[in-house]
């Protein structure tokens, strides 16, 4: 059996579009009122957009079959540390305050680069934390505790 060539990038795009478009249309039809063209309900426009996305996804998907393309190459290490940094910030900011959240997020995201050393990550974090406190807390008056202990 000969293997059918496929453009992985376009095929994945197609799946994403069909998935989101399908959800949009299904969810609009089942949970929102469609109404009439004269008095469109809240569901009509999203349902239509969903169908459009599915159609575009199908066009891209069909075009991807029988054609080879570049492989999808994700930088998993960088993604992990950057997204991990954002997660750390979101989790720590409210309970522990700006400084712990910034330090954790900065250290994690600094690890995204393969060239960084622990010492320079610590140095960068110190500078960035000072800047963040200066700009956001003192400059713009963002109401977020600098540092606190949430457990009494």
């Amino acid at each position, binding site marked *: 059996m000969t293997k059918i060539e496929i453009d992985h990038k376009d095929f994945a795009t197609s799946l994403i579009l069909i998935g989101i478009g399908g959800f949009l249309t299904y*969810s609009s039809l089942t949970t929102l009122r469609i109404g009439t063209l004269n008095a469109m309900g809240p569901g009509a*426009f999203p349902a239509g957009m969903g169908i459009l*996305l599915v159609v575009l*996804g199908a066009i891209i998907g069909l075009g991807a079959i029988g054609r080879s393309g570049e492989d999808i190459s994700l930088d998993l290490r960088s993604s992990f540390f950057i997204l991990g940094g954002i997660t750390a910030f979101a989790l720590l900011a409210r309970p522990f305050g700006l400084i712990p959240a910034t330090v954790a997020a900065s250290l994690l995201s600094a690890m995204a680069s393969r060239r960084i050393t622990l010492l320079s990550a610590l140095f*960068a974090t110190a500078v960035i934390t000072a800047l963040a406190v200066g700009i956001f807390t003192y400059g713009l008056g963002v109401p977020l505790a600098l540092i606190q202990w949430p457990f009494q």
Partner: protein
Amino acid sequence: MNFYADLPSNLLHGMMTALEPMNLLLCTVGVTLGMLIGVIPGVGSLAAIALLLPVTFHLEPAGALIMLAGVYYGANYGGSTAAILLNLPGTSSSAVACLDGYPMSKQGRGGIALLITAIASFVGASLGITLLIGFAPLIASVGLQFGPAEYFSIVVLGLLAASAVSSGSVVKAIAMAGLGVAFGTIGLDTYTGAQRFTFGQVELFDGIDLVAIALALFGISDVIASIRDNDNNPTTVRQKVTLRSMLPTREDLRRSWPAILRGSSIGSFLGPLPGTGATLASFTAYALEKRLDRDPSRYGKGAIEGVAAPEAANNASDQTAFVPTLTLGIPGTPTMALMLGALMIHGISPGPGFMTSNPDIAWGLIMSFWIGNLILLILNIPLVGVWVRVLSIPYHFLVPAIVIFVCVGTYSVSNSVFDVWMVLLFGAGGYLLRMLDCPVAPLILGFVLGPMLEEEFRRAMLISRSELMIFVERPISASFLGLAAAILLWGLFSKWRSTALSRAE
């Protein structure tokens, strides 16, 4: 033509607003920060504006816009600087600057290229601003006669045109614009108050925050995508830029002037067309110079016209791009979409009435363009050497700085951790889409224009008693849709032809 009667007093008024010490300061800060961020490889004017959006929320609307506009052209100039000195374009529009700017740099003429770029930018911007002043009131008065059908059609035109000119597959770009429109429907329905796709989250009732989605797509996903490149090719600045090295020869000036004027004209013309943006302007200007020259072989080897014309063109188009944004409330490019978003967050919705109801902001902004460009020319150009030193900061220091700025910036908009989670979601999604060669710029345009698209469609249906023909029966609306179809076909055809050509080789 009574709308020109007030022009002199409006201009004067605008100049006074722009010259207020606070606004002058914000303009300077904006241009400077813009340059600083713009020279960072992989970070363009879109990301620069997105990064500074949260900061401007704490300012007056006029000051906020003046600062953001300053960031916009400061970042564009910074992008050209990185392109000329390092062959690293920050944005697609400054990619043209690499073609002849980098060879000039290698010949030790980088300083001259930078100065000519600055002069070309100033001249281009000046022509663009003049045309903006001349045409904005006229277009606003035409816009007053637009009904929902015309608005719907022009939004369709904007979305399709922006998709057709973006690099890569046209269908993917349209799909991304559609995805943006889809994300724009999240929140309470304006007509009925019904919850749409909110999953019961109170934070989503007003929709996804524009700052969160913009920072995720242009801050986070950009950074993840560029780390690997920077790890493999760390940037090094070879050339020192001194003031003396920036002095052009008489020959350089003689060659540059006509190129600058041609570039400015092309840019001014292309700027207000929906979706075209600075990239098309600079590429067109470059192509024209090459065609007009008696010796096209000089291009790509350090021809000064190849730097001057595109830079004039992209700055002229940057200014005239404000025409549809300010007069109709319809941004033609993602950057303009962010500017519009900034206005809306301050409770101002631009449209035909905007220039008459908020003359302070509208004319103050327009006048500040000139001042900003002047500040760029006299204050920041001599400091180019300093900005370039930003490039010697290793990229791995910039990564955590950008991540923190995005996180705290997003949080500060409405003190919401939920918005930071949105950054995580869209940052991851945006990175995946980027890696699948899907352009994310049309997504943000669709996100901003989507609610408008839906509202105008529903209004048109209400007025016409559900007669879909209204869009083609009204002549202005029909011509917008016709133009959209033509641009779409042209886009598909030129992509098809270029792939056919590359396969034939």
